[in-house]
Each structure stands twice: as C-alpha cells, then as structure tokens.
C-alpha cells in the first residue's frame, strides 16, 4: 500500500477479571501498559480510534470514548472516532487507519480497546441474549449466544460432513498454543483431549462447555504508522498488506447461508488488495468464539478446501507442529474472550508474529499472517493480511 502503513507497536493486557474497573478505567490501564512497554513520541501520533466502553456490558453509556481518551493522552488528532463493528471493530480500525495513512490523511493512528464481559449469572446472559438477537423475532424463542453459533455448526455438519470430534479437535489444538502463552487464561489447566471436550457439560448441541470461549476482561492497543515512522519505532513492523470487509446478515435467522456468513467475500478482497494468495499465508489468526468458527473461516478464506476444515484440525495441522499454525496465542477458546475487546486479541497476535515478538510461541517463517475477525453473530467480517515486507 502507498505510504507502507504498518503496525509498529502492540500490547495486550493480561485477560482476567477487573471487577473494580469500569470501561473507561480499563482503557486507562490498557493505555498505561502500552505506553510503558513502548517508548513513543506523542508528537507523531495524529490519529486515535477507540470503541464504546460499555458495549458487552449493556450499559453503553460511554460513547465519546475517543474524545475523553485523546484528551487524557494530550492528543489533538486530525483522524479520530469511537467506532463499533463488534468483534470486527479492531480489524476495521486497522483497515481505516491504513487507508487514512495511504491517502495522507494521517501518519500514525493509535487504536485502543478495553473489554468488559458481564457475569452470565447476574442477569448478564439475558441482557446479552437480547442484544445479539432480534428482540421481537428471535429473543422470544430463547435464543442466546452459544445457541446462535450452534445453528451454524449443525448446518455445517449436515452440509459439509464436519463431525463432533473435529469440533473438539479445534479446542484441543488451540489449548496447545495457550500452553505457550504466559498470559493465556487456560494455560494453568494444561492440555485437553477430544474426550475431555466431549465429556464437558452440554450447552447447546453440538457445543459442550469446552467448545466455548472463556469469558474474561482485558484490552489492547496498537499503533498503525506510515512505513518510515514504523521503522523508526521497531526494526520489523507488521505491514498491512491488504484487507477486506463484508457485512452479511443482521439477525442469524436472516442469514442466507449459515455455513458461510461473509468471510469468503472479506477474504477475497483482502487477498486481491494484498496481491497474495491463500497459499502464501504462514499463520492464521481467526476469531474463535466457538470451535466451529476456525473450521468455517479457514474454508471460506480458501486456506483449506471446503469440507476439509474439520479434518485439518483433527490431523493437527493448525497445532504447534502443524503446517499452518492457527490461533497461536491460544484463541478466545483458551487465551480468553475479553468481551468488547476480544477482536483485538487475534490482531495483536498476528502483529507480534509478523514482528517476530511472539516469544515461546513464535512461528519461524511468519512472512505473511492472516487475521480474520467478525462482529456480532458472524454478521460483520473483516480480514487483514499482515506481512514482513511492505
């Protein structure tokens, strides 16, 4: 891309529970951690993007987050807003920032997220169920998040032959990666087997508890900068090679193809704009609220042949010794799903892998890393392709 926009700095808070921190307090903590980890010159930053601070908690009161935080940071940006595309928010931020940099409208854009996750026991499940469903035509039937995703899984199993054991294999593979991440929530639980997943408590068929991501709280910040600025910050930035987005249905019941919710189109745009092919991808970081998601989206993105996504995981191809590492930070399944900010985690990991900063879990030849995110109930899709070369 023109002006070589690249992720030059990235930092994620350790996922956990931060009961004393409201949305904006959590933003402060995330930004302080980011600024502590990276020595940056505020005068180069002329863009700032944030997300609403109370999205998943249902409070939604903090809608002018960018104003408050930019002021606290002493920034007077010429490119700034609070934007929300659910889990796709942060990939969309990277795309918007890259476009602004490519067109000369900004030179360095800070992108921030902080995520709360309501306790499902305290009425939070009902609030969230209503928010993710059509309130009058879905919610009245007892729809809620795991059940809505299970609808995609059932149809995928019917049409493409994906099996229950293959879904479990996604959780097994992803846990293996979590064991290599010091901050992953499920690291202390150790490795799991397909049998462990099948024996865990049933939630909404075909999903059992270990098919579901782990609710937590957290946040992250990354900086997208013009190539020369990025290279002054770090020797190997993660260049934004291309991106694509596609917004499919609203409520899940209105999806025209529940096995393929829009990732195919977002991915096609991303590969076209990057002038790359699926075969070029060395690492894939794919939003995984539930085990079906990496299977669906590897297929839709063309990284695996349609109908082979389940087998891909059962054969260990996405695991640490596999030929295409998937969700190398442990995924939302085992790293933790940090509510509003969950869509940051795979982007931060994609950047760290590309920058060569992923520590124990670093993939050797992470030349091209694909990040796929979606928002709401697999409705909004954004794919970003990062690379070691501009």
């Amino acid at each position, binding site marked *: 891309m023109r002006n070589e926009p690249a992720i030059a700095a990235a930092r994620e808070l350790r996922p956990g529970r931060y009961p004393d921190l409201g949305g904006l307090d959590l933003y402060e903590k995330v930004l302080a951690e980011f600024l502590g980890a990276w020595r940056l010159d505020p005068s180069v930053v002329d863009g700032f993007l944030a997300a609403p601070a109370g999205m998943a908690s249902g409070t939604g009161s903090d809608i002018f987050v960018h104003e408050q935080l930019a002021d606290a940071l002493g920034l007077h940006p010429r490119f700034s807003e609070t934007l929300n595309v659910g889990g796709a928010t942060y990939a969309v931020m990277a795309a918007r920032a890259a476009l602004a940099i490519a067109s000369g409208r900004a030179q360095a854009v800070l992108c921030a997220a902080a995520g709360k996750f309501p306790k499902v026991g305290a009425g939070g*499940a009902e609030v969230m*169920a209503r928010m993710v469903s059509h309130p*009058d*035509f879905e919610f009245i039937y*007892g729809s*809620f998040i795991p059940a809505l995703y299970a*609808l995609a*899984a059932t149809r995928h199993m019917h049409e493409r032959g994906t099996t229950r054991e293959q879904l479990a294999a996604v959780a097994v593979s992803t846990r293996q990666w979590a064991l290599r991440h010091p901050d992953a929530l499920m690291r202390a639980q150790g490795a799991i087997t397909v049998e462990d997943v099948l024996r865990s408590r049933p939630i909404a068929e075909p999903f059992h508890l270990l098919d579901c991501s782990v609710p937590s709280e957290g946040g992250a910040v990354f900086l997208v900068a013009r190539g020369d600025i990025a290279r002054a910050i770090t020797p190997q930035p993660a260049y934004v090679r291309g991106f694509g987005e596609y917004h499919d249905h609203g*409520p899940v019941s209105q999806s025209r193809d529940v096995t393929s919710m829009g990732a195919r189109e977002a991915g096609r745009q991303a590969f076209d704009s990057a002038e790359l092919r699926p075969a070029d991808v060395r690492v894939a970081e794919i939003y995984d609220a539930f085990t079906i998601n990496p299977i669906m989206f590897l297929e839709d993105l063309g990284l695996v042949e349609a109908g082979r996504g389940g087998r891909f995981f059962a054969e260990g191809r996405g695991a640490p010794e596999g030929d295409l590492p998937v969700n190398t930070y442990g995924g939302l399944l085992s790293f933790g799903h940090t509510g509003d900010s969950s869509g940051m985690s795979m982007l931060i990991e994609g950047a760290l892998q590309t920058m060569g900063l992923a520590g124990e879990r670093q993939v050797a030849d992470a030349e091209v890393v694909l990040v796929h995110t979606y928002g709401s109930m697999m409705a909004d899709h954004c794919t970003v392709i990062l690379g070691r070369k501009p």
Partner: protein
Amino acid sequence: MSREKPLPHVTETTRPYWEGARLGKLMLQRCRRCRTAIHYPRPWCSACWSTDLDWVEAAGRGRVVTFTVVHQPPFEAYAGDVPYVLAVVKLDEGPQMMANVLGIEPAAMRVDLPVRVVFERRSGGFCVPQFEPARD
C-alpha cells in the same frame, strides 16, 4: 430477570403480525411492486425498497434450515424447558424465521425436517408462532 417467557414489543409496523398470530394465522408482508414475501415486518420491501406492502397469510409450512438442542437455560424463564429445540425455518413462501420446534423428541430433530406452524399462548394473550413436525 423474569420467570415469564419474553414477549415482543408491538409497534405499528408489527401489529398485524401479532394480531394475526392471535387469530391463529402466520402473517407475512408481500411487496405489491415486486411480490417479494418479507419476514420480519418492516416498513419497506428489502428487495426493491418499495413502501407499498400488503399483508398475506402464509401457508404455515416450511423446512428446518438448521437447529440446536439447548441444554443450558439461557435465563430463568427457560429453566424448566431444557432441552428445547431452537431452529431456523425456511417458509414455503421464501422468508426464514426463528422458532422453537415443539412436539418432537430432540434426538429426532434433523435438518430439512418439514414443519408446520402452531401457536403458543403466552401471558397477556400473546400468541407466538412456533412449529411442529408436519405429519402429512
């Protein structure tokens, strides 16, 4: 939190749908210009953006596009209902809708099952369209 099943919020746009349900009719909108059948109700045709819409009674038949059997009640109102079937049904007229499939053992559920509409009575005199296996 409530022990009662959720009720819809009725608006001017959706009132004919819920009044039809009370009379045992599954109502759909149909575009007078391009004839597209529409669910959920809205003030325009999502295919051609005409605002000239009619209400018609659906045949009340369709097929299960996909489903899940819920074991963990999402909130208190469903605590006594598990396991229950949550499904997406494609109506013969074209539109898709969410519903529960009633009157079937969850283990017998399958994709493509032919279903027909039934109505579940809830508090406040509301009748909610649901489905059961079509027996003919």
